[in-house]
């Protein structure tokens, strides 16, 4: 019986394990090995030196963080009050969530392509701003930092919002009522009960939004200045892999990317555990 059970278990898990080993772990380890080897295959740190030693390459980290961190913070900071406002459902919720899911589904490429015209010098947005009289000359929204940041926000905000909305609707409304009955005003209830309970959800949505923003690629090329101010780390990795065909340096950059992300994610999780000591005990939240 025990042997049969174990055999069954192995059979059930085998396809998924084979899949993850061959398509994820093996490539990742392969990349790790490549990043520490020279073209002849012997061990070297030159690939990392090449990245960190070159100011032009090294600064892609700051460029990427400089775009992705503010955008992620803004997305989540905007998402929290919106999710809070809609936690009990409101009229027109379906229409609103539909418009939120559209940019996520369509993806960066289409949004960037649309933004080029819509937010361009003669696009509708500038026409509107000038007609209202907010600005006298067209504002430059594209081919700079702001183009990339806006495109990331257009996707990052609904992503964080919908995630938080799913999370917040799982918090029992009785907890807010209980807080009120104990004498807490609406603001006190938010600060002392609702927000702390949202922390795990905020942490997760921050992590996932950050991962998406940090690996920004198509919009940094199409909407930014890929040869300068918005030369992000994924452009650099792509450049080394498919334009220089130096897979060793490209792998090193990929590893650096993954490492930075894991670093930020673990930082967020540490913060979450500080904020929410009950988390490990409460489990489901």
């Amino acid at each position, binding site marked *: 019986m025990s042997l049969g*059970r174990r055999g069954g*278990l192995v059979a*059930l*898990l085998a*396809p*998924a*394990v084979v899949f*993850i080993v061959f*398509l994820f*772990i*093996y*490539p990742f380890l*392969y*990349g790790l090995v*490549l990043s520490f080897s020279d073209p002849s295959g012997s061990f070297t740190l030159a690939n990392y030196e090449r990245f960190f030693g070159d100011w032009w390459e090294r600064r892609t980290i700051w460029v990427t963080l400089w775009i992705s961190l503010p955008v992620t913070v803004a997305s989540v900071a*905007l998402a929290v009050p*919106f999710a809070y*406002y809609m936690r*009990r459902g*409101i009229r027109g919720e379906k229409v*609103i*969530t*539909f*418009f*939120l*899911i*559209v940019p*996520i*589904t369509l*993806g960066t*490429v*289409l949004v960037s*392509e*649309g933004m080029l*015209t*819509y937010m361009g010098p*003669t696009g*509708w*947005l500038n*026409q509107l701003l000038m007609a209202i009289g907010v600005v006298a000359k067209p504002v430059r929204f594209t081919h700079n930092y702001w183009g990339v940041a806006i495109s990331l926000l*257009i996707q990052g905000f609904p*992503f964080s919002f*919908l*995630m938080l*909305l*799913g999370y917040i*609707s799982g918090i029992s409304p009785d907890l807010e009522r209980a807080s009120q009955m104990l004498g807490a005003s609406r603001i006190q209830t938010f600060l002392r009960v609702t927000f702390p309970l949202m922390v795990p959800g905020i942490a997760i949505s921050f*992590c*996932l939004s950050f*991962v998406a923003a*940090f*690996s920004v*690629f*198509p919009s940094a*090329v199409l909407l930014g200045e890929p040869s300068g101010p918005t030369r992000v780390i994924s452009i650099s*990795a*792509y450049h080394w892999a498919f334009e220089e065909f130096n897979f060793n340096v490209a792998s090193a950059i*990929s590893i650096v990317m*993954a490492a930075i*992300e894991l670093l930020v994610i673990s930082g967020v999780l540490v913060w979450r555990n500080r904020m929410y000591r009950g988390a490990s005990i409460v489990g489901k939240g």
Partner: protein
Amino acid sequence: MRGKFGLSGILFVIAIVVYVGNVLGILLTVILDSVSKRWYSGVLPHFLTTQWYAYVAQDHDIVNLLVVTFVVAFAVVLISILIAMPAAYALSRYEFAGKGLLLSLFLLPMIVPPIAYGIPLAMVLYKARLAARVIGVILANLVPIVPFMILILMPFIEQVGANLESAAQMLGARRPTIFFKILVPLALPGVFTAGILSIVKTISTFELTYLVAGGRSQTIVVALYADAYAAGARPPEAVDALAVIYFLTAMICLVVALRFVSPTQMVFKIR
């Protein structure tokens, strides 16, 4: 809160209007631009034309792009169901040593960004002579979808309940019978949900496909990016015409998907 409109309500409505207005603006510009002749200024274009669609049809093998896009999407979904279903079953029914480790391993591809693991993956696929072929595109797209599928399926399987299976066993059913007669029909809604979400996701996946696709194994998004990237090579209206074709493809899938799942479900599980 219903019916009462305080300051927060007004701010909320303004923000939503601004957001929806911009999204609509972006989409409408793409659509209008694709059917206009020389729309460089003014609120609306002066002449409408379908010439850019003719241009795109000549420029690209549209049928091939669509076929590849859907073949990849459906193949990825079918293969990932076959891989994910047994794994999700094992993970939600059995306790075993290393289960937590295995679960976090399956989660990893959802946390690590596609570019970071996509480049080494592309190199492996090139070495195996699988890249620049539809099969390579399918393999690459499996990486984020299988874990996603496992995560969606697990709660559905847990919902079916182990006692239902015990009941069937008491009634004399054998393991395979239980699996196909009890579990599969009852978990079908979950499989369906996971499948539809995965199709929508795969159609719009850009980075992974871009890194491994080439020539006739491109999907529509990748072709669109390539056109937009080489901005000077063709008229911008023609790029927008291709964008509209992609937009329609993705929207049809989204609208179909939204008949069965809610937007919150899509995001919470997506990515």
